[in-house]
């Protein structure tokens, strides 16, 4: 539990980062500066994005508090596993218990389920709130998605309300654009095209809450809209998954079934050869977000106090390239795109289930403007285009 003023054990204070490497220097036991310093608060630190972002946040000279759903001892183990799977995570593992304070919260409860004075103290000291926690399962129950993503955001806004000095950095998704096609600008947010799944709808609703809150309070908010966050690094057991890892696991299970039935199969998806997906390496995305978070919030942007960034790849990935890698991950399965196809057979439905909603994106031709992201991250090299080899490794993870 969160204990204001709790003496801290010996720790190391990070002094900066460069090229993804996080460096630390020693600090005296029970540093007063650390005790009194303002906080960076993060939700979702044990998740895929959060665990990649955390080392960058630790590379400031401010203490980090992670709001977690588990008992702190359990959460610490979960966090350590997740960090160990990230490029910079090894740097912080040894000192993790002293670098990150874990506070058990209920993101759906008033005041995060914390006693009033504890919530007040947390809010008073908070300088930044990174809201990364989300349910990202595209085909989860809509009510559950809205509860976790909507209600969770509401409670984070409640914390931000009580934290007058804090800047909120909200992690949304590029796919709040739903079924829109063509170019989407960073300030666009409309639901006229509908949504491809309840996950998109829940994140859209959450972003609306954030924007409404920012306008009504006149508070600076940074909204990050990452596209599909991926990595090609191997995934150790019991660490957070990314969407292609989920897809790969589903395909391997489907391959088991096809092998057991001793047959090959063809799945036909509605889509065209010109369809694209935007996949962005999480290592780049986390660094870009941390860079933007470290700079002052934009004072004037077209959308009032909210500055929005499409944290996306410069190059879209052709859907046929993804499908080829998927066929590679599922021997015996051939995947074809058929424009205008509507009626799905039994195998199509099984494929849709195994791939957790991916099939809806086979007809996607949306592009994301990244002008504001590019301007804010000029020092960062954009990632290389996503190659077939990268996709195969990502699906294997």
């Amino acid at each position, binding site marked *: 539990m969160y204990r204001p003023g709790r003496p801290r054990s010996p720790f190391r204070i990070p002094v900066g980062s460069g090229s993804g490497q996080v460096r630390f220097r020693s600090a005296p036991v029970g540093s007063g500066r650390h005790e009194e310093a303002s906080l960076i608060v993060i939700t979702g630190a044990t998740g895929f994005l959060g665990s990649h972002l955390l080392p960058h946040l630790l590379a400031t000279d401010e203490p980090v508090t992670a709001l977690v759903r*588990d008992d702190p001892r*359990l959460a610490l*183990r*979960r966090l350590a*596993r997740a960090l160990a799977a990230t490029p910079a995570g090894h740097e912080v593992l040894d000192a993790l218990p002293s670098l990150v304070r874990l506070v058990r919260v209920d993101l759906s409860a008033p005041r995060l389920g914390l006693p009033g004075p504890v919530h007040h103290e947390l809010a008073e000291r908070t300088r930044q709130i990174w809201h990364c926690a989300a349910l990202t399962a595209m085909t989860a129950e809509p009510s559950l998605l809205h509860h976790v993503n909507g209600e969770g955001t509401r409670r984070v806004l409640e914390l931000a309300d009580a934290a007058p000095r804090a800047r909120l950095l909200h992690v949304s998704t590029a796919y709040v654009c739903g079924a829109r096609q063509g170019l989407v600008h960073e300030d666009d947010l409309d639901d006229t095209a509908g949504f491809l799944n309840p996950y998109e709808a829940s994140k859209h609703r959450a972003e609306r809450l954030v924007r409404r809150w920012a306008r009504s309070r006149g508070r600076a908010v940074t909204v990050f809209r990452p596209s599909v966050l991926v990595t090609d690094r191997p995934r*150790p*057991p*019991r*660490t957070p*998954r990314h969407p292609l890892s*989920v897809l790969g*696991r*589903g395909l391997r*299970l489907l391959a*088991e079934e096809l092998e057991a039935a001793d047959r090959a199969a063809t799945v036909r998806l509605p889509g065209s050869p010109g369809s694209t997906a935007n996949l962005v390496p999480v290592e780049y995305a986390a660094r870009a977000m941390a860079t933007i978070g470290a700079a002052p919030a934009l004072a004037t942007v077209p959308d009032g106090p909210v500055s929005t960034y499409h944290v996306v790849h410069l190059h879209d990935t052709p859907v046929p390239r993804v499908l080829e890698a998927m066929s590679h991950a599922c021997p015996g399965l051939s995947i074809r795109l058929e424009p205008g196809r509507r009626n799905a057979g039994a195998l199509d439905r099984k494929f849709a289930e195994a791939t957790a909603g991916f099939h809806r994106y086979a007809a996607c031709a949306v592009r994301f403007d990244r002008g504001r992201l590019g301007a804010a991250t000029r020092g960062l090299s954009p990632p290389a285009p996503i190659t077939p080899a990268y996709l195969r490794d990502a699906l294997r993870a």
Partner: protein
Amino acid sequence: MTDAYQLITDYLHDRFDVSPAEITEHTTFDALGLDSLDLAEIAVILRKAHGLELDGVRAASTLREAACRLDEARSGGTPA
């Protein structure tokens, strides 16, 4: 402890690097960091290797509950 419990914990150790110190029979799969996809994989392995179905087990289930399900599957149905 039943053979089914041992089977599950052995598999958790071998495949998911779960140490004995992390486990009690009241531990849930979720607490160990396993999700529904991990459970699906365990179910496939149990089906292929032992012909057993791991029905009704979720990430929130305890290891004891999972072992009971396996024992039920072995005995051919739900005990009275």
